[in-house]
């Protein structure tokens, strides 16, 4: 077979140009590329989005933009404490400027090792996640491929979503409890056949029998009136201690729920293993963990049945992929957390299309109907309960240019090569 150099191959491809433009690589990828400038993008705190989101009106996410000497700009995202994150970006910017942004694992490793010198996590980990997302966005743009193609291609044509239903990110100001069936019907009418709810609350780590019964009444009502049409996930927000978690799981057993999420804080995999071994309810955890190193211990202890992560917290899309691939060896599926900004949601759609061990992805009606469209043009919206990732190169979202003219977006140059 005739040997051809990569450069010759690329030049030939450009010359012939038989491929549609979107599939051509945007740059000559055999040449080095450098990060030349790092920007932090935050948003006016008094933005009022509206749309009946309950308590929520504004946004809590921030973006990182990596500029390169090839003209490609990659954007990453994280939330919710932008001051710590952007401070961390300043501290770590020397690790990034001048590096080739396509060296994804090498940069991740250097960044992680530096932060792990003093307890990895927090703002430092969130900003690494955003940087990693921006790097993958660059790789996608540079290669002319949508991100899911670089994460393994399409394992499924569309991604099933559930709706996270809280008073805070509400559907037209409705509230669970008084409006439960109105909400369920609203979702079912749109083909959304799964929802996550927060029925159990307590002042402390103990749940009283009354509070337990109050919470169960939501689930009973959904099952009584719509049978098994709706899959139900229950999130406890890490609120409870082991005995209360066990009592809640036991109460949920007859209702065949999809999963029970974050019953306790993730401080002890053995406590989770005990809960998982004692209940038939699938145990899901947790977007509060980061890196494959933290998840590994939960897998080994048989502490969970479903994993959740947040791409903008766990170390970024490349780390998320590694966590899911490891979970797959335990036959554990993935259900990503997406209740942040538009890039998290869109990037999660890419990953979910690719993952062999995908279960269902989070979405929120208020966010994709009102919040995200305020910032980007082509946000994927569920159709019959499923979304499809963008075909544009990289993450593929069109960020609205007017944000940068109206003063809604505040751009700060953090470092320049």
């Amino acid at each position, binding site marked *: 077979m005739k040997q051809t150099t990569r450069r010759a191959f690329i030049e030939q491809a450009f010359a012939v140009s038989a491929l549609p433009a979107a599939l051509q690589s945007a740059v000559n990828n055999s040449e080095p590329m450098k990060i030349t400038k790092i920007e932090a993008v935050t948003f006016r705190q008094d933005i009022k989005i509206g749309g009946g989101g309950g308590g929520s009106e504004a946004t809590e996410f921030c973006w990182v933009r990596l500029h390169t000497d090839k003209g490609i700009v990659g954007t990453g995202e994280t939330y919710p*404490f932008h*001051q*710590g994150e952007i*401070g961390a970006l300043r*501290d770590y910017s020397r690790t990034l400027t001048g590096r080739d942004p396509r060296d994804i694992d090498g940069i991740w490793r250097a960044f992680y090792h530096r932060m792990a010198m*003093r307890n990895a996590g927090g703002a430092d980990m969130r900003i690494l996640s955003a940087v990693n997302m921006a790097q993958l966005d660059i790789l996608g743009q540079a290669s002319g491929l949508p991100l899911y193609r670089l994460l393994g291609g399409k394992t499924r044509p569309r991604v099933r979503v559930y709706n996270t239903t809280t008073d805070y990110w509400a559907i037209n100001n409705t509230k669970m409890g008084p409006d439960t069936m109105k909400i369920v019907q609203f979702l079912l009418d749109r083909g959304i056949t799964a929802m996550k709810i927060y029925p159990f609350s307590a002042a402390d780590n103990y749940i009283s029998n009354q509070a337990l019964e109050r919470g169960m009444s939501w689930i009973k009502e959904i099952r009584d009136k719509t049978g098994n049409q709706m899959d139900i996930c229950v999130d406890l927000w890490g609120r409870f201690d082991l005995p209360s978690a066990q009592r809640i799981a036991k109460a949920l057993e007859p209702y065949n729920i999809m999963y029970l999420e974050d019953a306790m804080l993730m401080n*002890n995999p053995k406590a989770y293993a005990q809960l998982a071994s004692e209940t038939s309810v699938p145990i899901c955890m947790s977007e*509060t963990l980061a890196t494959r190193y933290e998840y590994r211990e939960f897998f080994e202890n048989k502490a969970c049945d479903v994993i959740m992560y947040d791409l903008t*917290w766990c170390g970024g899309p490349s780390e998320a992929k590694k966590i899911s691939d490891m979970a797959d060896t335990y036959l554990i599926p993935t259900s990503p957390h997406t209740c942040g900004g538009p890039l998290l949601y869109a990037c999660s759609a890419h990953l979910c299309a690719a993952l062999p061990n995908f279960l269902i992805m989070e979405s929120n009606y208020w966010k994709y109907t009102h919040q995200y469209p305020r910032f980007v043009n082509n946000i994927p919206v569920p159709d019959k309960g499923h979304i499809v990732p963008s075909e544009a190169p990289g993450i593929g979202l069109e960020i609205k240019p007017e944000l940068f003219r109206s003063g809604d977006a505040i751009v700060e140059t953090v470092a320049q090569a």
Partner: protein
Amino acid sequence: MRRRDLLKGAIPFCTPFAQRAASAAGPMKITKIEMVRVRKDLRIHDVSPNWTWVLLHTDQGVTGIGESYPSQDANHGALKELAPLLLGKDPTNIERIWQDIFYRISYQPWGGAEMRMLTAINIAQWDILGKAAGLPVYKLLGGKAQEKLRVYNTMNGWPIYGMRDHDPEKVTEFLLKRGIKAVKIYPYDRGPVNAFARHGGTFITQAELKQSLDPIQRIRKVAGDEMEIALDLSSKWNLPCSLQIARSLEPYGILYLEDPMLPDNLEAYATLARETSIPVCVSERLATRFRFREMFDLHAVDVVMYDVTWCGGISEAKKISDMADTYKIPTSPHTGGGPVLWFASIHTATSLTNFYIMESVFHLYNDLYPHFIKDVPTPVNGYVTAPGAPGLGVELREEPFRSGDAVRETIAEI
């Protein structure tokens, strides 16, 4: 407000005894949170201080000081985010505030900058409680379990009057003369061999293994067994390299082997600890009792190390050591940071029944801390003693604030 008034109004410059009158019983409120950062281009003997102080002011006139390091910008941002959880709260409710902040930051993967700031806040709270009670902090942690604390000196690039770690004979003689009979060295990622620089921690040759023993053999030649030697591997190695290094060190009576690998898989540490007779020490890189519990559970460690300004603070350090004690594991605190770390570690370690040996750095307590702090505790005959003043006993000098070496900023106030 003029700068001079600002300095005058500042409680931290009062002597700790002057604050003793503060009501210990009455409720107290945090009214203002300040951050102090060291000027970024400041060099003292070629070393740049990199810590951040947190000052909690109260309506009772008592002010507490806490600290963490490095990453000043991230710490600054994180403190701004946490400030609303503190203003108006009673700083003597130490457990409640820790738990509330920890829960808040546990909605995301916790750690990093916000854990460092939770840590600094906790230390400042203990300082306040001690001042309000008129007691040194160690007395609130269980009193004097140790009359004095044995220290070793860390040779990690910090100079001793210009001498550095590549001169092991001179350093050994200097330390022994001062009665300091233990030293920590870094032959695997510093010095002439530096096998890490050659292979990135993924491989080590037989020749490098042998050459790396050189400083140990030279110390033994000068001091015999009078000098204890600890090895720090800076978490740069994989498991097989760690095993090989440990095996090569077996004949030398090592005090402990610290941080050969990152502590993000403690099963790997359990394997190492099983295979070597050298005591394994980990790790100031971990925070909270929850992370340390796993280490004990797995028998992954022989000596526990934490950094009081990283691990969650004085409260968390004490809890970790008390849990370690149930496994017969002693404590060796990491202190290679700022002056409040040094004071807070001395108080904490003084109260521990399972104390082993504490890190100290000659350059830090001799050159750097005194630039900012009065009456820095200094080892005498190899031992350091806790200060008796109420709280931590940290008394800030005014000069660095006047000269701009230390910069105060109000983060939040009522």
